[in-house]
């Protein structure tokens, strides 16, 4: 992407194609929105493969103060 110092931010974003990706990105947002936690760092949920095994539970206990 060449430097575009002479243009303004909006023109730059439009030139990058961001004005025309609405349809593409929206389908993704529709899928992701229900999992998103607005305004906060999302927790790593079950989908990341976490399983509460005895081993993990034991490890967790060692971190308790």
């Amino acid at each position, binding site marked *: *992407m060449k*430097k*575009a*110092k002479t*243009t*303004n*931010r*909006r023109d*730059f*974003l*439009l*030139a*990058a*194609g*961001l*004005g*025309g*990706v*609405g*349809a*593409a*990105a*929206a*389908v*993704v*947002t*529709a*899928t*992701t*929105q229900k*999992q*998103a*936690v*607005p*305004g*906060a*760092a*999302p*927790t*790593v*949920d*079950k*989908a*990341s*493969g*976490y399983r509460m095994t005895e081993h*993990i539970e034991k*490890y*967790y206990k060692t*971190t308790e103060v």
Partner: protein
Amino acid sequence: MNAVAIPVAVHRPLAAEEAARADFYALLSRLFQAAPDGSLLHALAGAEPLPAGGDARLAKAWGALIAASSAMDEDAALDEYDALFGGVGKSPVSLYGGFYAGAMAIDHPRVRIRADLAGLGLTPHVDEPEDFFPGLFDAMRVLIAGGAGRGPATLQEQRRFFQSHLAPAWPGLVKAADGAAKANYYRQVAALAAAFLAIETESFELD
């Protein structure tokens, strides 16, 4: 990252390019938070390519992610996510910005423990280390589009957050994910992140 409620919410529709930015951040947050499930892979596989004439790198990365999403299944994605980002202690690719930004505090035992617990999904999101990439991306989404009881942030606020917390860290994440031996699908995710965040970086230099 505390949301500041704005008493009188003025809901002006977001400009298309701002909505697109929020969407990209939402997608990156989601993909780095957890492996894509079947419905997300399906949605990505069916997504439209970006229109020609825009940023070539972004269009190429988007096309590659669409292709990879149609070839990927849920189980393989889960295995790859765990291989790259999972585990207690050091994972091949850190999801914490401080790791790449060289923050001294990253060595603080309490921070290490917190990071390990977060990797196990045991930390409530309010206590998630603040340099957790999915949280940083989601924070940008909210700053752009509003949500959580607040309206969009000013461009100056967005710029300050991005330049303070994401700019020093994202190149390291992209490089690590791209170079990890077990990376396949996430190599495409990294390429999309790099293309999009490079546009963000440059746009914040403009008014």
